[in-house]
């Protein structure tokens, strides 16, 4: 049976969600992020009130983080599903298309990316501009 994907009704719209950013997806010196980072099937986020910055930094060594609220995800047509990560971490959620939960986020990814902001916190790395390809 396919899984039932339900919005976490107990999670307030104001809940802050952290998303780790692969440094490969930082586009330029202005630290703009590619929508690729948000364009997945089940966007991986953590409710920061249910975990700590240090715990998340340990899961994604060297990666910076961005944040947005659950309300932002819902406003662009997504649901926020309670899905523990591979470590069984229950602070993890997956942001999914409300109309087609297993599908990859596309336009929604861009809208969430546009609303997301960098996290500046002592326990997580600061975002860095991309390093150029080595000339041949």
């Amino acid at each position, binding site marked *: 049976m396919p899984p039932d994907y339900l919005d976490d009704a107990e999670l307030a719209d104001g809940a802050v969600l952290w998303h780790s950013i692969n440094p490969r997806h930082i*586009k330029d010196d202005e630290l703009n992020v590619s929508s690729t980072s948000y*364009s997945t099937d089940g966007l*991986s986020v953590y409710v920061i009130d249910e975990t700590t910055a240090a715990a998340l930094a340990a899961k994604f060594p060297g990666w910076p983080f961005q944040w947005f609220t659950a309300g932002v995800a819902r406003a662009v047509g997504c649901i926020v599903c309670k899905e523990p990560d591979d470590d069984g971490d229950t602070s993890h959620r997956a942001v999914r298309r409300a109309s087609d939960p297993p599908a990859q986020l*596309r*336009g929604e990814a861009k*809208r969430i990316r546009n609303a997301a902001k960098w996290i500046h916190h002592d326990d997580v790395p600061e975002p860095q501009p991309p390093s150029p390809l080595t000339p*041949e």
Partner: protein
Amino acid sequence: MTSVLSSANGTMTQLVRGAWEAEAYRHTLALKDLPDNWDRPRSSKPTRQAINSALTFIERVAALDLVVLSTPFVAPMSHGGVQLEWEHGQRQLDVELLPDGTARFVISDAGNVGEGDLGFFSASDVEALFGWLAATP
């Protein structure tokens, strides 16, 4: 001009029209050297079909010879695809080359977002998308 492009897994020689095109090929070819799990657990490196499709897409864009274009951002996707991102003014065009080589896109203009599927894209698909992108000051 002719540009010789190489990565750890191969070399190609390609006639290019300008600097942005050569740079885009180079960034795309570099994706061949990514390991699996380069992103999150169970992520895949870009497939050969996705990379070849991205190279073809870049070639078709360059053939339009639009002076307003700059180098696209070339990003690997965790499912084995490749994304090419262009910006012009307030308009943005993201083209996703899927692991099977088909394409789809997301366009954005001052916060308005739309999306569509191209399948195995044609030169006229590329021309239509870039006509839209370039038609802004």
